[in-house]
């Protein structure tokens, strides 16, 4: 608790006002802690703009969403028409709607790039584990938000997308069918489903999302930002206690970020004005047909940002199960034979593997497809504890790590591409190989991240003044 601070009666009116507020609310203190005296490493590169950009898109989505809610009707009989009404009859309604629909894709684009930045520079490593976990939770909430929002226009893709995803839950043994019923509120996706998804989309999930964003930033500002060198700037402080490689976030990075925001808005508005549907990738053509519970569109695919995970789901067939069982068996055997741990743990691992294999043989491949899809996201949460490399940043990791990360990115894009395509024999095989690589990359990380000799890490960040 700060003591009451008196100010000279001759001070300017503005100073008096600020003093009045600061005695009652820590305004200056907050500004200093998070802006003018938050010391960020001075060697940030272009990868570091995507955090600010995701915040910008979040604001765009909330503002446009509020205005869309004023005209939208969450009723199965009226929803499709009300979206068309917004597009045609509401003054400037088309712009607000396209900002919101393009914003959804932009959100995922900047968030994927933001996460990739964290991946290559080791931003999830100690002491930033909680920042990473809050971030993964934001990603999960964002997926829920996007999925439920996609039902609202009540087009064919809205309807069948929701039907497929809600039915994923019914694959869970024992409780599944009842759980799916509880989510839908009816025996099929219908008015009850639309109404509750609307409620979740406009209030429940955004509240969670905002809370998580605040937690993400508080955690980040507590530990300080990582940087492309993965060097802790707090380890080298000047006589005044300020990191030598740090620079106040404001005004240095706020000005950089304004430039990034300008470039982003140029691209964003160009898409809104010239390609809001993005060739069917941002808004699928089938979604301009009202929902019809009797006819599934001939080709059904989720929006692009879900397709890598959708491929993980589709890849698991009953044939693929044998490959997965083999992976579990080999993994358990290696742990027992090669692992350095007490016999008790080895016994637990062997027993656990037997139980998992028995479950894999007895429960439908469909359920394991759901596990694969969910696991693809959940595994990200464990990243801080999977990576055993001696250095954080890709810059000082053994060179072959760079190729591995390149393959990971290519694999992720291929998985995403296959998710947009109709099922095919070759595509199925490629997606199965891609699924094994995706999980192998993370599951074997404790092993491969230790291999090779890292390059020497400098004590200070590499930075040349310009």
């Amino acid at each position, binding site marked *: 608790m700060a003591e009451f601070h008196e100010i000279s009666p001759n001070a300017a009116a503005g100073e008096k006002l600020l003093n009045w507020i600061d005695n009652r609310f820590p305004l200056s203190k907050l500004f200093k802690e998070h802006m003018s005296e938050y010391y960020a490493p001075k060697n940030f590169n272009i990868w570091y703009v995507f955090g600010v950009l995701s915040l910008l898109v979040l604001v765009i989505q909330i503002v446009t969403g509020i205005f869309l809610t004023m005209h939208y009707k969450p009723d199965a009989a009226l929803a499709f028409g009300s979206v068309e009404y917004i597009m045609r009859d509401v003054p400037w309604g088309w712009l607000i709607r396209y900002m919101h629909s393009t914003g959804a894709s932009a959100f995922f684009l900047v968030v994927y790039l933001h996460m990739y930045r964290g991946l290559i520079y080791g931003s999830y490593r100690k002491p930033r584990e909680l920042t990473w976990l809050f971030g993964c939770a934001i990603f999960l909430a964002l997926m829920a938000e996007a999925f439920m929002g996609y039902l609202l226009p009540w087009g064919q893709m809205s309807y069948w997308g929701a039907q497929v995803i809600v*039915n994923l839950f019914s694959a869970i043994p024992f409780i599944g069918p009842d759980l799916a019923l509880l989510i839908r509120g009816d*025996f099929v996706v219908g008015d009850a489903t639309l109404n509750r998804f609307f409620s979740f989309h406009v209030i429940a999930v955004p509240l969670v999302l905002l809370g998580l964003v605040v937690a993400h930033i508080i955690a980040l500002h507590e530990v300080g930002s990582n940087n492309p060198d993965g060097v802790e700037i707090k380890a080298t402080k000047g006589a005044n206690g300020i990191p030598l490689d740090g620079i106040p976030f404001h005004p240095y990075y706020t000005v950089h970020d304004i430039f990034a925001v300008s470039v982003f808005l140029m691209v964003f508005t160009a898409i809104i004005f010239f390609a809001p549907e993005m060739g069917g990738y941002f808004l699928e053509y089938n979604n301009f047909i009202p929902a019809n519970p009797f006819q599934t569109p*001939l080709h059904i695919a989720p929006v692009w940002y879900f397709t890598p995970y959708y491929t993980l789901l589709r890849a698991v067939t009953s044939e693929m199960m044998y490959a997965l069982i083999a992976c579990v068996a080999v993994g358990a055997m290696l742990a027992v034979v090669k692992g350095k741990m007490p016999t008790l743990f080895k016994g637990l691992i062997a027993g656990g593997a037997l139980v998992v294999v028995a479950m894999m043989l007895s429960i439908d491949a469909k359920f394991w497809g759901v596990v694969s899809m969910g696991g693809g996201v959940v595994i990200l949460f464990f990243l801080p504890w999977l990576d055993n490399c001696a250095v954080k940043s890709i810059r000082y990791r053994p060179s072959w790590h760079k190729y591995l990360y390149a393959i990971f990115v290519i694999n992720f894009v291929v998985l995403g591409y296959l998710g947009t395509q109709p099922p095919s024999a070759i595509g199925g095989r490629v997606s199965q190989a891609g699924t094994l690589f995706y999980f192998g990359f993370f599951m074997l990380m404790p092993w491969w991240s230790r291999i090779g000799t890292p390059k020497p890490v400098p004590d200070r960040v590499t930075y040349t003044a310009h």
Partner: protein
Amino acid sequence: MSETLANGGKVDDSKRTWLIATSCAGAAGGIAAVVPFISSFQPSEKAKAAGAAVEADISALKPGEKMTVEWRGKPVWIMRRTPEQLAALSKLDPQLADPNSTRKPTEQAPAYARNATRSIKPEYLVAVGICTHLGCSPSDKFQTGAQPSLPDDWQGGFFCPCHGSTFDLAGRVFKNKPAPDNLEVPPHVYLSDTRLLIGDDKKA
């Protein structure tokens, strides 16, 4: 016996007991308050009432044609199979995941439809047109022979566009496809030669 705290103070045991008791009572009340909210997610009485049986007139259905009626918001197919299509069914057994519907017999079809054609009258297939994988509605692929996404020796059937599961003209799923089970045959009964009741089989 009262505990001594790090700062030298004593724990008031009686106060602590009451603190624990009130906390537990409060937590129980809080959990109980969640029940009505979760329960409100369940289907409403109105939604449950909408599950009545529906009647279908099949007099206009020609061999090789299919019609769809709505029952509980789901599409129910009524397909009149040609003799050739019926003859092809038995040859497919080795390619099917569960040709005799033995995996979950009671869920897949009522007793009177647990036979080679999965129907009461061999000619007419009655099935819920919802894929047992993730609930898409498979599309008609009655034309035989090679075509995109289907095997070259295709004998006619249904193809689910979502994840590529294929079903024969008795709604039986092919091997190594994501769908685990054959299409569900709903309870149904013939009221006359041309009138079919779907959703109920007692009004014979």
